[in-house]
């Protein structure tokens, strides 16, 4: 099994996630894009694990998932809080901290 297609797929997904973060305005969708980037990273890790023949990559991917879960929990709570006060989930609305 060749590794390069997996890695390139990972890169493509990562880039799409990055662009999504840049173009979407809904904070939740942005969060989804971040998750997409994390998943792309996981794919690369698992692919490398197979290529190297040991399980360290899988362990790393596992940790990424756990940390992502924690991050999502806190991040969504923050979005909730912001929404509660500003009645908006748009990241562009929270733009008071500027020149």
């Amino acid at each position: 099994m060749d590794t390069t297609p997996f890695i390139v797929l990972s890169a493509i997904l990562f880039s799409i996630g990055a662009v999504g973060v840049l173009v979407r305005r809904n904070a939740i969708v942005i969060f989804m894009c971040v998750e997409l980037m994390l998943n792309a990273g996981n794919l690369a890790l698992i692919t490398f694990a197979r290529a190297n023949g040991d399980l360290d990559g899988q362990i790393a991917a596992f940790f990424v998932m756990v940390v992502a879960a924690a991050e999502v929990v806190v991040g969504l709570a923050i979005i909730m809080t912001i929404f509660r006060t500003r009645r908006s989930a748009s990241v562009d609305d929270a733009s008071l901290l500027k020149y």
Partner: protein
Amino acid sequence: MIAFWILAPVMVVCALGILVVRKAVHCALLLAVVMISLAVLYAVQDAPFLFAVQIIVYTGAILMLFLFVLMLVGVDASDSLVETIRGQRAVAAAMGLAFLVLLTLGVAQVSVGVDQGLEQANEGGNVPAIARVLFTRYVLAFEVTSALLITAALGAMVLAHRERLTPKPNQADWAAQRMRDFAERGTHLGPLPPPGTFARHNAVDTPALLPDGSTAPGSVPRALAARGTVRTAPAHEIDVISHEIGADAPVGPMGGLPAPPAEGPVQSDEWPGSVRPLPDGSEPEGHPVKGNKVSGLFHEPGGRWYAQTRAEVWFDSADSAEAAGFTRAGSRSGTTTKED
């Protein structure tokens, strides 16, 4: 590799879909597709444990959490795909493309060497093998992760918790409040009018008609109004009549007769300076201002929500719209429809 070549295009298309679909719920569903496909790819790559974790944690827990929050937050203007920062899309696309090209160039040059495969590492089964590594070499990281999870859970609770500052109002309080509002501001005392009566399917999205033929603003849920999925009563009427006569031909409004050949904008008898929408929904000649009867707002050309507003009545100018009792979009604050 067959699984890869089948799944990879699906994943890329779904990922791209996340960038373009308007509704956050659709985004979540597309993401679910990507994640499940990834899980399959993990399985293909001798990682059955992660396959399960991916399904359970990501698609099961995290995405469900996303959907929960989506339901809580509700629908809102941030779903719009109109770009507000000038040049952001072009720059983002250029940056993403450049990043992709560079990254691909980079990984293409990495020589991974001979593909080792995990047969040896997974000899006693993938899960015991992972457990062996996790609880020996990575045990410290594992424990720290547990601390992180607890902290995150606590943090989420603290953030989401809302202190109650006033006593919880009971039924009597609510009733007193309603009477007070009525006495002071003339707020309607009774319950809101129910939605439309021409219940063919889910009539919740069809507003009730007042005796004069206009729609009752409070008769549809605010979320539907904000989402823009409210059907106008005349449109509903057309649906009914079309169904009865079994034709898709355009029919006239009110009365079930086919519309006369459109010589120009049909004058509305509702307000001076207003016309009813043309059958195709485009702008009647000389009446550029869109009016939303449900929300009571009007939109001027160039306004933020002009393009996506479905007009129920067109005005020739903002003045006549205001004269008709409509409010300029964006001048009202604190509504669920975050127009601004």
